[in-house]
């Protein structure tokens, strides 16, 4: 009966209640949305690289090395010698090594030179390996493997011929438009920068840079298989940008890191990717907290609106309160009636907010993953968000205390 009275009372004031619910729902939408996307992006951020124990590059800051080697952002300070790579990867403590050679682009996407070990050892997320949605790893100099997003955005399929340019711009002056690269594989989406990368062999990278046009001209335009094989020998890389290391035992990580940092032939930096990722995310902490603060303030504003609406209704319901008193309702009944009404408004707002967020993520999910490379899950009710919802319910009780007390007071006077 108590519950029914509260529900019917709210239905009787549909107009103002609806608006209040909208305001609350929007604020809950923002609150949960910010928290959800924050959590999800942190997760996908932290899972960009997971298998490698160390990342090695020329002497630089750990942030810089992480940014250019993993996120393909910014420019490497210096290259490292191919011999150095071979020396370090020959260390018995090293299980595998993936060389990375950056510096070229294809229509705005970074081109990365590497070896087929990349497809075997590189992992992301919870130790997930790269998989091919179509095709296979590169085998020859002019074979190309595309990240999922590159293929989707540029509409490339297997067998497509593409041109690689030197430099990073979309319209580079030195277009190597004679290099006939061919797509042989397309990777499955990962939600990491891998999706936006064009992978070729290290020899492929070298081929972009040598003036091999002459060779082609000599053989009358067509490049024979034999010539390519001859070319491969010539295309031994001189330098690479960075490399990732997997160690035989994790126990040796710090030891190997120290050895690399003290490498005498060349100044090098080795970083632990997990540590560097955590440091980088910490730099975003201020932004995170600002977003949280703003969504918190929006919620406070909505709750104040709820409180004001309830307070106004107490005056409207003067006679109703008096009547309830006369038929024997004690003052606390009116206090809890108003509190219950506020909580009902709050719960309906939560439902609307959560449904809205779920639908928005469902609709926007595709755009987010193709245009921003963000993979946002649909599991909105994380532990944090359930905690937030409880907090909203608690704040509602507090915000409704003022109008509830007014109802209680006007009931006590009994006039």
């Amino acid at each position, binding site marked *: 009966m108590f519950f029914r009275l509260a529900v019917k009372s709210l*239905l009787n004031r549909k107009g103002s209640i609806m608006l209040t619910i909208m305001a609350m729902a929007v604020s809950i939408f923002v609150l949960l949305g910010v928290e959800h996307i924050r959590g999800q992006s942190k997760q996908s951020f932290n899972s960009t690289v997971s298998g490698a124990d160390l990342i090695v590059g020329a002497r630089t800051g750990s942030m810089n090395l992480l940014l250019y080697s993993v996120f393909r952002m910014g420019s490497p300070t210096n290259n490292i010698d191919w011999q150095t790579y071979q020396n370090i990867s020959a260390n018995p403590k090293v299980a595998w090594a993936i060389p990375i050679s950056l510096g070229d682009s294809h229509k705005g996407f970074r081109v990365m030179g590497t070896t087929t070990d990349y497809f075997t050892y590189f992992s992301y997320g919870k130790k997930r390996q790269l998989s091919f949605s179509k095709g296979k790893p590169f085998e020859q100099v002019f074979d190309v493997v595309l990240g999922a997003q590159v293929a989707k955005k540029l509409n490339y399929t297997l067998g497509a011929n593409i041109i690689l340019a030197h430099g990073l711009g979309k319209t580079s002056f030195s277009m190597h438009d004679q290099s006939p690269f061919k797509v042989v594989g397309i990777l499955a989406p990962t939600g990491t920068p891998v999706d936006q990368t064009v992978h070729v062999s290290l020899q492929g990278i070298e081929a972009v840079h040598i003036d091999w046009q002459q060779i082609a001209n000599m053989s009358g335009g067509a490049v024979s298989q034999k010539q390519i094989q001859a070319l491969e020998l010539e295309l031994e890389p001189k330098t690479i940008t960075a490399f990732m290391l997997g160690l035989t035992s994790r126990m040796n990580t710090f030891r190997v890191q120290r050895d690399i940092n003290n490498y005498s032939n060349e100044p090098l930096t080795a970083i632990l990717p997990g540590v560097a990722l955590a440091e980088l995310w910490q730099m975003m902490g201020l932004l995170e907290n600002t977003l949280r603060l703003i969504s918190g303030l929006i919620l406070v504003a909505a709750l104040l609106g709820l409180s004001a609406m309830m307070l106004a209704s107490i005056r409207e319901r003067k006679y109703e309160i008096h009547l309830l008193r006369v038929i024997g309702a004690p003052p606390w009944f009116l206090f809890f009636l108003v509190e219950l009404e506020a909580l009902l408004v709050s719960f309906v707002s939560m439902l609307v907010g959560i449904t809205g967020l779920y639908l928005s993520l469902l609709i926007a999910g595709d755009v987010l993953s193709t245009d921003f490379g963000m993979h946002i899950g649909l599991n909105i009710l994380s532990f944090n968000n359930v905690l937030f919802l409880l907090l909203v319910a608690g704040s509602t009780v507090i915000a409704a205390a003022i109008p509830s007390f007014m109802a209680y007071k006007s009931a006590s006077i009994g006039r």
Partner: protein
Amino acid sequence: MAIQLNDVRFAYPEAPNDCVLNIKSWSVSDQEHVFVHGPSGGGKSTLLNLLSGMLDANAGQVNVLGQRLDSMGARQRDHFRANHIGYIFQQFNLVPYIDAIDNIQLAHQFSNQQSLSDEIKSLLSSFHIPQSEWHKPVGRLSIGQQQRIAIARAMINKPELLIADEPTSSLDHNNRDNFMSELMAMVSEHRVTLLFVSHDMSLANYFGRTDAFSEINTSGEHN
């Protein structure tokens, strides 16, 4: 005695020197039907609020149905009111957005008695409320119907004392006569003491006893 007042004084806390009620001695016997008339704004409603325990007297004895209201706590008075007193006002007798059955049920909720919805339905039938109107929010019913439901609501807990505060003022002539005859039949049948307050002297012929409020309350003469 259903009501016995001795040396009762009352002033609102906002104006403690302005004595609204000053009653030397006034009583109503069991099952008596008393009509109290007087101009509006004379303190009649204040008297009724004292009798129902909504207000607490500053001094004197307020004896209702053999219980001393002036020595009870606020919670006890709320309980006493729910269980023993029915109350009908001029208007706003019902919560407008819930239906007739819920309104009566709500009044019942605050009392100790057990009752069935059958009882509510027979009450509504006896007040000639058509079944089709039972489940509509009462705000949509006519004033006449609302006042009849108000009697039903006031009677659901089988009160010994029924207080009516100008219940007919918002009714037209026809509805008023219907209302009065149904009310009088109801109180006679259930042997209820009725205290009826109005400024409309033409209603006096329904009652066995008529008191002028100015004779009960002497506060105006002394101040």
